[in-house]
């Protein structure tokens, strides 16, 4: 589905991503782990085309997309939940969700299951996104990315600031989406237990490099938790 | 070949470009003409054009540059009084020459400046006299309307004194000022209507600055205040300003100048023809399709030619010698009279014309002085000028 090959990326002079390789398959959750500042967000931004890569290649559905703009990638079926929520502060909740449907034809309804997933959004449809609490914003950001039904869902620390029971719900949703088999999921997560529970594949990063990867079932055995904790 | 450099100091950008650009062009035309006739003292004139960009301190800087760096023999330039005031100390310090081609408020006389535009008594006072006359409509009440700056203020001060001398009472005079660039004349026009509705014949004397005239006249036309009800006589509205106005509703409103394009005489026919040809040849935007001439253009043209004659007479471009030679110079002006440079006060003797606006944006001359009028830069209607002689002296 998604294949990242030997990607290198720089901010000015500093080398942020070093020969990163990554695969994400339909029906699987690929978890990216690593400490603060190792380049996880940068990697996801490169996937979305928000930052250009210096070398290497990214293919999506077999098509190279490293030259594509973010909106072309979105139209190709990539959905993104950015770190720090980044909802449209001055648009209402409804309008935020409509932005999520931007490339669908006008008048496409917002999938009802989103509101089942995040009931609080239904109550707050008319409120401005910026007025929501941090956790509400995070829920909105996830709902927004799901609205258009992407083939690849990219999540950057989606549990940050969310209350425990909703984290569980989010975990279930991610599992369910993956299990449906028509979506690949890349998840960056600091909350180790959450990540481990969901991981079909895992990747651990350190200083911009992938230092470990493998199937999720082996995480415990390989003591990945320790690797992240160093 | 050796040349004589002359400076052309008119704003080609900024707010004043609208009026001054064409003066630069007419100056270049006059210089071309003189050169075609062999130049002066056997040398060609070489114009040095600079753009002071409607910025008054920049005028002074450019004047210095023209005199110091380019060593020009004379400078033709300025439009607003403030620009003239800004360069004046430079010309006096360097003992160089400026020819100033625009009507102004007077209250100034410098040895180093020749004023080829009108002093108030060569424009404002005859205009008001005309409106008081039977032919002008016997106006009894007066609105003195102007842009809030020194030229209108001073002119109106002189006019007020003049009107009072003619027995007009203070309550029959209304004075109103608008800011620079004012573009909403609804209230002012309503006030004029109100003032005029008191019964006696009312006339408006407008010293509104060029830019505000279009909105003023448009409002006037649309508010239905016709020249027969309340005539407006303007001192800053010429052919160029009317280019931007639909003149049909304005027919009959007046302007006072020392020259109109519509004046019929061979000298003017030649002048306008030359200008049209020049504008076409030089591809001067606007004028190549619709060539217009106006009073400051004529004044510029006279100024350059007189200076050339004076240099020829003095056989030198030395400032003092040229000044001496300028006294009494005459030139057959396009206005149809022979303009004479006063022997003492550095102003021209000029005829005064009063024109009514025609539907085609030209002026219909309805009144003119029998002959040229001598300038009175230190107006007697300003008390402090009593006893002041109209003699230009070095300071």
């Amino acid at each position, binding site marked *: 589905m998604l294949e990242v090959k030997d990607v290198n990326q720089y901010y000015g002079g500093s080398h942020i991503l070093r020969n990163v390789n990554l695969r994400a398959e339909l029906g699987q959750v690929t978890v990216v782990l690593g400490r603060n500042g190792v380049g996880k967000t940068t990697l996801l931004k490169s996937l979305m085309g928000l930052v250009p890569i210096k070398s290497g290649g990214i293919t999506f559905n077999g098509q190279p997309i490293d030259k594509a*703009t973010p*909106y072309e*990638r*979105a139209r190709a079926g*990539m959905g993104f939940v*950015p770190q720090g929520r*980044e909802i*449209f*502060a*001055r*648009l209402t909740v409804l*309008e935020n969700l*409509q*932005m999520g449907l*931007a490339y669908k034809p006008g008048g496409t309804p917002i999938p009802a299951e989103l509101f089942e997933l995040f009931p609080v959004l239904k109550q707050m449809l008319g409120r*401005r996104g*910026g*007025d929501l609490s941090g956790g509400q914003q995070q829920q909105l950001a996830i709902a*927004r990315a799901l609205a*258009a039904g992407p083939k690849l869902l990219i999540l950057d620390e989606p549990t940050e600031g969310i209350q425990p029971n909703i984290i569980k719900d989010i975990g279930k949703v991610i599992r369910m989406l993956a299990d449906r088999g028509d979506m690949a999921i890349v998840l960056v997560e600091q909350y180790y237990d959450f990540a481990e529970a969901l991981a079909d594949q895992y990747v651990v990063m350190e200083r911009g490099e992938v230092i470990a990867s493998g199937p999720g079932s082996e995480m415990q055995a390989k003591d990945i938790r320790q690797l992240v904790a160093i | 070949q050796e040349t004589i450099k002359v400076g052309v100091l008119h704003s*080609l*950008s900024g*707010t004043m*470009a*609208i*009026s001054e*650009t064409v003066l630069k062009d007419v100056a270049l035309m006059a210089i071309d003409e003189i050169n075609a006739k062999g130049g002066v003292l056997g040398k060609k004139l070489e114009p040095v054009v600079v753009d002071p960009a409607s910025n008054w301190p920049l005028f002074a800087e450019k004047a210095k540059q023209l005199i110091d760096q380019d060593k020009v023999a004379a400078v033709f330039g300025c439009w607003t009084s403030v620009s003239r005031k800004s360069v004046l100390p430079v010309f006096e310090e360097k003992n160089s020459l400026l020819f100033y081609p625009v009507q102004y408020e007077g209250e100034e006389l410098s040895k180093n400046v020749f004023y080829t535009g009108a002093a108030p008594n060569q424009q404002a006072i005859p205009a008001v006299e005309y409106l008081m006359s039977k*032919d*002008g*409509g016997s106006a009894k009440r007066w609105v003195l309307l102007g842009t809030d700056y020194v030229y209108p203020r001073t002119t109106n001060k002189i006019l007020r004194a003049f009107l009072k001398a003619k027995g007009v009472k203070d309550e029959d005079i209304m004075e109103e000022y*608008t800011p620079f660039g004012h573009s*909403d004349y*609804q*209230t002012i026009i*309503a*006030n004029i209507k109100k003032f005029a*509705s008191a*019964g006696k014949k009312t006339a408006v004397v407008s010293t509104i600055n060029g830019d505000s005239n*279009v909105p003023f006249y*448009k*409002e006037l036309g*649309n*508010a*239905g205040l016709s020249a*027969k009800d309340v005539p407006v006589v303007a001192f800053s509205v010429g052919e*160029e*300003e009317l*280019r*931007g*106005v*639909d003149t049909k*509703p304005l027919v*009959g409103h007046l302007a006072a100048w020392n020259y109109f394009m*519509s004046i019929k005489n061979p000298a003017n026919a030649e002048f306008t023809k030359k200008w049209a040809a020049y504008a076409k040849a030089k591809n*001067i935007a*606007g004028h190549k399709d619709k060539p217009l001439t106006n009073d400051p253009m004529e004044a510029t043209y006279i100024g350059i030619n007189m200076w050339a004659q004076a240099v020829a007479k003095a056989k030198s471009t030395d400032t003092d010698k040229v000044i001496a030679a300028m006294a009494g110079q005459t030139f057959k002006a396009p206005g149809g009279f022979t303009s004479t440079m006063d022997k003492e006060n550095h102003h021209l003797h000029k005829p005064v014309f009063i024109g*009514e606006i025609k539907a085609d*944006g030209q002026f*219909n001359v*309805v009144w003119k002085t029998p002959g040229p009028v001598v300038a009175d830069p230190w107006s007697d209607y300003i008390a402090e000028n009593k006893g002041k002689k109209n003699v230009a002296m070095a300071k």
Partner: protein
Amino acid sequence: MMRWLRSCCALLCLMGAASVHALTPADALALVEGDGDARIATLNRLAAKPDDQAQALMKALADGAVKVLGQQVLIVADDGSTTDATTGAAVAQNDEAQDVIVNNRMRGALEAALAVRQLFGSDVGAQRDAAKLLQRAAFEEPDATQIPLIEKALAGALDDQARDSLDLALAAMQLAAEDDAKRLSAAKALGEKSRPTLRPLLLQRLEAEANPAVKAALSAALSAIDRQLALGSALSQAFTGISLGSILLLAALGLAITYGLMGVINMAHGELIMIGAYATWAVQVFFRNSLPGLFDWYLLAALPVAFLTSALVGAAMERSVIRFLYGRPLETLLATWGISLVLMQLVRSLFGAQNVGVENPSWMSGNITLLGNLTLPWNRLIIIAFAAAVLLGVTLLIARTRLGLFVRGVTQNRPIASCMGVNTARIDTYAFALGSGIAGLAGCALSQIGNVGPDLGQNYIVDSFMVVVLGGVGQLAGTVYAALGLGLLNKLLEGWTGAVLAKIAVLIFIIVFIQKRPQGIFAMKGRNAEA
């Protein structure tokens, strides 16, 4: 002028039926040359004996179509063909022929002379005009000697409007009648109609009047007029305020999008307005040269042209410069300042530094007069309506359409919007072009009331920013309130303190108001506001 009108009337009455006298060359010459008094005397003489040739000459004079060549008086027809005024013989064109001076006084006398004849003619329009002229004359200086003439006219077949005018004229004249009853009824008649132009006359009569009943009627008539005047001037002040507000609104609306929504400090906004005005001018020139028959409708064609021209320039600006500066609003200030310099100079190079002339089409000229002193110029009325229409359009577009949603989304968070699948580059261009196009529409409207020159925009840029900021950046509703509020306030103060102090006071008001509401009238509420 009125005196001449009266003598004409008197003469006309005396003459009764017309006797035919041929116009002599001497008379013709006396009419067009010489001292004003003498010419007018000749005119009256000629007017008293209506004669087709004299009539034609008078008409031509009033139209400014008469020339003299030596001793010969010539009439120039519209097509340029020239005839002798006395003989009617065709004359070859001659450049030596001099224009005849017709000043305001002469023009007035000519109109009066022509008018009185028309009172008894069959042309209804001419009749009405003539009656109005007489009415005005009667209001200014009523002359009892004219009563017979008016009565005679009233007795004849007359158009209703003309009759109304003459009735009033008659009443004005009868105010000075000997008979108390006549004076009283005249005063009452005038009181009913309450025409503000009557005020000076009524005041004058009131002073002279002895009869208490008439006095009372006169005072009543006066106070009716004064009430009307007061109402009229209050309404007129409100109108001028709204009108100024509509101008400010039009000038600011485009900026409310490019700056308010997109955050581009667009110093070239004024120049986009200017370009719209020049586009209007160009369309006008085209119509005048190529479609003179449709000239009155050039403005309708100019609207889309002005919109598109400015929108294209805006789109070009966005594509070439502004898109590289999103997120650096203060840099846009610098770059657009540079663009504005270039655009202004470009227009100077192309069209000249001087103003170009834009005419009001006939349906936008003139005014409707209500209440005597409340005149509403058509161009201003239409611009108010136009501003309202543009506002409505913009509001719907921004609040109700997907394009509007995308514009708002993109301007708030460009990268994330693109991750949602929005082609941000295109939306940015559209949005900027839209704001620019609206500026072009404003230019089209402004061309109808003011200068069209290279500096046009400079006069509006400061006001536009004040309006947008005072309203609250990004708040369309605030922009509307701010524009109307500033317009009304400015006009209210201007009536009171004069234009200069009013403008200063408005600026100080803005400063003080912002102290009270540091985010404009419609401050963004909520927790995101400070972010």
